């Protein structure tokens, strides 16, 4: 069922755009080039981003044992952004080197967040995301301070607006890094679940808590930094998709992780299609549609379930 929906949406995504649908269907003109260079890479990057951002959110929520933590609410994305900026300024050259630098920076800032919330004695469910938001704010203000100094505020701002409009063959392939990570997440799903119960619980079941925690951080940081570099910031997915699935099917990660991944892809695809149709033939940036649709759902979740929150 889900796969049929996903497939149908994918076909729609390939068909809509500036060029009339009949062109694509009949392979007229340079339809083939259009598909191979533009539409298919765009579709693939949406699918990968949707899947990996929601899985990254799921893992973070599990490891921090808090439903409102995700790369966008815990400073991970802000850390990645600061990482990109610094790598540019200190002249880390080469795409791979810069990506790697950003990843390491993201890993450090995310690790620091987890350390901070482990130190906070009062583990209130609202306090943890609050700490995350404050922490992200601090990182963001450092980023903007540096950006002001070097007069590149606009450049930094564009990373805030995630967009798939610029995805073309040749500039999105970094996203494939996420695929093995998704497989790895699935393999470790039950270990993440146990780690979510805490250090002592893990130990009594013979699970190395620190190893699982570190692996989770690496996965989340790699996913976040590669996505930020390639498509930019996509808000909310990491929070709403895992929460929706958790409400419907619980938290048994081995069972829910694939569903979270697919749902994330479907959600992002829908947002992208809507964004491309509203002011056709122009586009609304996807972060806008995601914010509006996702934000509404998120608010609904907050209001509906104070008990589990």
């Amino acid at each position, binding site marked *: 069922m889900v796969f049929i929906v996903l497939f149908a949406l994918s076909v729609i995504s390939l068909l809509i755009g500036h060029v009339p649908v009949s062109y694509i269907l009949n392979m007229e003109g340079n339809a083939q080039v259009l598909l191979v260079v533009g539409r298919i890479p765009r579709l693939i990057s949406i699918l990968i981003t949707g899947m990996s951002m929601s899985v990254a959110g799921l893992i973070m929520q599990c490891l921090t044992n808090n439903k409102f933590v995700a790369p966008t609410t815990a400073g991970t994305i802000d850390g990645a952004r600061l990482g990109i900026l610094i790598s540019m300024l200190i002249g880390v050259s080469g795409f791979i080197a810069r990506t790697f630098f950003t990843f390491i920076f993201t890993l450090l800032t995310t690790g620091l967040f987890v350390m901070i919330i482990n130190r906070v004695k009062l583990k209130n469910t609202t306090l943890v995301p609050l700490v995350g938001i404050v922490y992200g704010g601090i990182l963001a203000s450092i980023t903007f301070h540096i950006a002001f100094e070097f007069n590149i505020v606009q450049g930094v701002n564009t990373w805030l607006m995630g967009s798939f409009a610029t995805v073309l063959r040749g500039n999105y392939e970094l996203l494939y890094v996420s695929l093995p990570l998704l497989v790895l997440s699935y393999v470790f799903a039950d270990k993440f679940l146990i780690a979510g119960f805490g250090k002592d619980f893990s130990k009594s079941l013979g699970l190395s808590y620190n190893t699982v925690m570190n692996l989770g951080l690496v996965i989340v940081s790699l996913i976040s930094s590669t996505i930020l570099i390639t498509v930019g910031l996509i808000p909310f997915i990491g929070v709403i998709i895992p929460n929706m699935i958790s409400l419907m099917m619980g938290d048994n990660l081995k069972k829910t992780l694939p569903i979270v991944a697919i749902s994330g892809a479907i959600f992002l695809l829908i947002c992208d299609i809507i964004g491309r149709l509203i002011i056709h033939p122009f586009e609304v940036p996807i972060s806008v549609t995601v914010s509006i649709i996702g934000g509404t759902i998120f608010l609904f979740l907050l209001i509906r379930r104070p008990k*589990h929150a």
Partner: protein
Amino acid sequence: MIKLLNITKVYEKKEVVKDLSLEIEKGKITALVGENGAGKSTVLSMIARFMKVNNGEIMLDGQSIRSIKDLEMAKKMAVLKQMNVANVKLTIRELVELGRFPHSKGRLTAADHQAVDQALEYLTLHNIQHQYLDEISGGQRQRAYIAMVVAQDTEYVLLDEPLNNLDMRNSVNIMKILRKLADELGKTIVMVIHDINFASAYADNMVALKDGKLIRAGTVDELMNNACLNKIFGMNCNVQDVCGDKVCVYYKSS
């Protein structure tokens, strides 16, 4: 057998457990009793290896627990801390399945499923096994966690205040189950418990701690007397024989 040899634990420059030596009998229920802050939970945590020992040695069946690998340990000893009310939405069965992790590492075999079924049966949870943990009562939830420990199928079981927040009926229910685990399955159970009369009625042995030091260890009969309890709890206790159990009356103690 669990053997503690001259255990000392220092926490924030304070000795919370001082030179404690102790033997915990196999196949029996041992209750750790004492005032708040006597060091009972600390001792339990050290046996479970949640905390490191500063001085001394803890031996499990003649082997130092420091030399046992985590996974091996998890097959020998199951630990349940004061109810882990994790923010996780799982069904009872899914929770109990986690207990099989040390054996299956996540990939449940037919034998694992059978062990889970048995544990659910043992705690009469099979009828509600697909309900979520946040939808059931506190007593049922505690039984679910104990079912997980049963599914882990270990010789040793450590429990930190298993009766915490339970009403009378559920407390009796849990204690009866623990008794069955010791009698029928031969498990060695060590628990921290505050209700001295529950300890008296269901445990075999008692270990009394005060200020991190051992006051007395022995059978329930040896410890359940006025002089001994007065010393442990620092208040006047009046032990009576009621229906074959030794019951301590202390509610209006001066």
